[in-house]
């Protein structure tokens, strides 16, 4: 019993936590290869060799950091990602954490991600990292609302906040078709929570690496790994909420979830380098004046649709 309920879900989630970021790195390599010539050890070995270099390099210390918080930040980000991944249902009975309010838990994970990213930048006590951290919080405070409105729209037809119920409510039609605004908005939130691509306000080039400017070695490895893990967890939630999770013919549930997650990850990996980095002011205006009203529209649509 304990094997069934504790050990199996644990190993499955931890396996996804390790494999997911690796596969995301491979997808990133594929996207980079399509954008220009790359050389190196090939897409399967490239993430491993990058990680090996980070392991060999010494970890940096700054003059007067908040040492504990600085080393905790990447580990906390990883823990948040793992928590998000634990919420994803892999089949009708196979869920690591099946609670009645899993959407609320995911919302709190998203909110805490902002705190953790700020901590990474602030604790180093250096100028460029500090600016990166504070700049990111503006984005962090904005994406939470959009994400929550979209997810509440998904919860309406399910009449429940549990992700397992959300999947069951998609048996006739997936939410991506039923609430078409939801998934695009949610993908934007995904890029924001892992500060990728156009939303890279935290680790941007104009701050010489932003919150990672003074981070090297193993801490960098854990930070980049945690970023990818958070994107994997995010894609798990996106799959569950919009793409029907384990629903699908012929193949077993977990395989469907894995395929759909990989599809979402590929889409996000492609979107990342596709756009220029947005300025913070424009980002905040975009989120509050355009995307939040769209999230309202999505909610109203979902509400009307649920009552019909």
């Amino acid at each position, binding site marked *: 019993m304990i094997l069934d309920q504790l050990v199996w879900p644990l190993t499955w989630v931890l396996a996804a936590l390790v494999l997911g970021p690796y596969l995301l790195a491979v997808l990133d390599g594929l996207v980079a290869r399509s954008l220009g010539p790359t050389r190196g050890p090939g897409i399967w070995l490239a993430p491993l060799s990058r990680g090996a270099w980070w392991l060999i390099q010494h970890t940096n210390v700054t003059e007067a950091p908040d040492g504990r918080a600085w080393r905790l930040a990447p580990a906390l980000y990883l823990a948040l990602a793992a928590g998000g991944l634990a919420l994803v249902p892999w089949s009708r009975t196979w869920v690591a954490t099946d609670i009645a309010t899993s959407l609320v838990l995911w919302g709190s994970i998203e909110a805490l991600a902002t705190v953790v990213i700020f901590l990474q930048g602030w604790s180093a006590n250096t100028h460029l990292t500090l600016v990166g951290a504070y700049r990111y919080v503006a984005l962090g405070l904005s994406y939470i609302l959009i994400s929550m409105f979209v997810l509440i729209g998904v919860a309406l037809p399910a009449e429940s906040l549990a992700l397992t119920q959300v999947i069951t409510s998609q048996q006739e039609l997936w939410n991506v078709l039923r609430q078409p605004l939801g998934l695009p908005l949610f993908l934007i939130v995904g890029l924001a929570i892992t500060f990728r691509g156009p939303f890279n306000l935290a680790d941007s080039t104009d701050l010489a690496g932003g919150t990672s400017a003074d981070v090297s070695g193993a801490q960098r490895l854990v930070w980049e790994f945690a970023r990818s893990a958070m994107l994997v967890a995010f894609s798990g939630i996106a799959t569950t909420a919009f793409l029907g999770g384990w629903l699908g013919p012929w193949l077993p549930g977990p395989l469907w979830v894995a395929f759909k997650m990989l599809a979402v990850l590929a889409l996000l990996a492609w979107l990342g380098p596709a756009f220029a980095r947005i300025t913070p002011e424009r980002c*905040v205006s975009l989120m509050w004046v355009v995307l939040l009203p769209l999230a309202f529209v999505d909610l109203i649509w979902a509400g009307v649709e649920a009552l019909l």
Partner: protein
Amino acid sequence: MELLVLFVILILSLAAGLLLQWWPGRHHPMPTYPQRAPFLGGGLPDTHAWSRFHVRYYPMALLLIAFEMEMMFMYPWAVVYVAQGMKAVMEMGMFLAILSVGILYGWREGVFRWQ
């Protein structure tokens, strides 16, 4: 039971993250002061970075708090929405409309401008 699994997962991943940072560096010497100086392209800072940083998006954060409270109401609302029908639509519609006026006001007052 589920919460125990979640707790174990959180603890394990936190421990893994910390261990992975500590283990390769356990024999490394403490970096010298010049290495620890902040990277400023070769320049020197005047002070430590920690300061009372002027957070330009403070008004936006206040607007966020208002919407967060709305979100708190929407969580149980979503669960009983289908059962309640049009009444629920009306109530939440009013709430959303009032807060949207807040966004509009904030936009006109330049809350989203970075100054």
